[in-house]
């Protein structure tokens, strides 16, 4: 299920998927004006994703540069049938952030969120549920059905870039258990999304 607009942003108007798709196509043609508009529309969302994973603004800024350079270079590889433009760009940003984390090794403890064990990681809802895309609503419903520990692991891994080791340390849980939670959780999530779609 692909919704026809990007999620509305606080204080900003929804961005039409078609418009972002057009801008990406223009970037492929080396259109700098389109690129600048794309940056204006999407940089805050992507920077939010990067800061959430990388925690340190200076590092996130560098990652944002790398992300947009990759978007410029790879704009021609975006396929609308594989998801929304924003999802694709968020994916580029997340992979960039994960690359940075891997090269840096594990995070310093002060770079982690101060959570006492596993908080209920029903995420940091940046927007009310009713403003989310249909896809996001379905995902949230399916996440809610998972056991709390499993849900937390998946959300922390995706949104915060936590490694297995960090998740295990965070919850004082054996790493093998964390991996099992994630694997079982992914299968349950897939089944649930298939059922609800």
């Amino acid at each position, binding site marked *: 299920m692909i919704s026809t607009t990007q999620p509305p942003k606080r204080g900003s108007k929804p961005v039409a998927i078609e418009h972002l798709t057009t801008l990406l196509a223009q970037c492929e043609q080396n259109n700098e004006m389109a690129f600048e508009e794309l*940056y204006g529309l999407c940089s805050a969302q992507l920077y939010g994703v990067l800061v959430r994973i990388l925690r340190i603004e200076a590092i996130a800024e560098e990652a*944002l*540069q790398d992300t*947009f350079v990759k978007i410029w270079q790879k704009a021609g590889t975006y396929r609308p049938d594989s998801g929304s433009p924003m999802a694709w760009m968020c994916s580029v940003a997340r992979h960039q952030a994960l690359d940075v984390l891997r090269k840096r090794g594990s995070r310093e403890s002060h770079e982690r969120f101060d959570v006492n064990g596993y908080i209920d990681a029903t995420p940091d809802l940046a927007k009310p549920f009713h403003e989310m895309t249909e896809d996001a609503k379905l*995902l949230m419903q399916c996440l809610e059905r998972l056991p709390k520990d499993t849900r937390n692991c998946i959300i922390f891994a*995706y949104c915060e870039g936590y490694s297995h080791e960090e998740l295990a340390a965070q919850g004082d849980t054996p790493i093998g258990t964390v991996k099992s939670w994630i694997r079982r959780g992914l*299968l349950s999530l*897939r089944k649930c999304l298939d059922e609800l779609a």
Partner: protein
Amino acid sequence: MNSPDEHWWSVRAGEYVLGSLADNDLILFEQILAHDTGVKAEVAQWEQRLAGLNETTSERKPAEHVWPLILERVRRLDSGSAGSDQQQLADNAAAEFQATGNDVAESGVVRPMASSRQLQLWKSLAGLATAASIVLGVLLLQQSADPTTPPLKVDGLAVVLSDESGEPFFLVETDYGNLRVRVTALAPPSLDDNRDFQLWQALPDRSSVRPVALLPETPGTSATFHVDALIEGSDLFGVSIEPVGAVTVRGPTGPVVAHGDFLKKRGED
């Protein structure tokens, strides 16, 4: 990527998208991802399934100085003077494939056997080659290029690793039920014209080896082979360099360049 491995691959793809695959698991997955359209599709599906989580993240406006830096970089790229960017991309790729770690054994994905021990094993097996061939007899092989051949039902999976760098050379998938093996060349080393790569399977007690097939050399190409037998209980494959043209049955006569054991054993979830 075929059932019954479908769930296994789907979960791996999900872990890749989550970012929780690490070290050798990640290296192997990315190598396979580069060549397997089924795995690519799984990754794309997980990207789509989980994308909604990005909506839980608050927007954050980047500093004003960031955009001019990006613009400068893409202009340098477009003018062809982006040596540093290109170098950085190359470095990124290189760094990805240089990652190492001890998580492999713990993960249960690649069952461990220290590289030096494996190399020692294959050296000793090569030494026993002639005797082994007498005991085992000749295993006749038929290489199938029949396009009507039904899809491989993968019930075991091995990645053959190089002995030095750990970079995967070949992906080996086995269909014990139908006695077939599919081998995909990932990034094998270059080979002289008068040489072939040959796949071997070790006996369960690892006392000797059986020949399996000659392998494709071009990265990204696959070949499926019918074999007279696959050894039940065996989980170790190796690749040697042999004289061109015919399967060597008496054990490796040339250097063993790659070896590895199952990523997933038959019957494992």
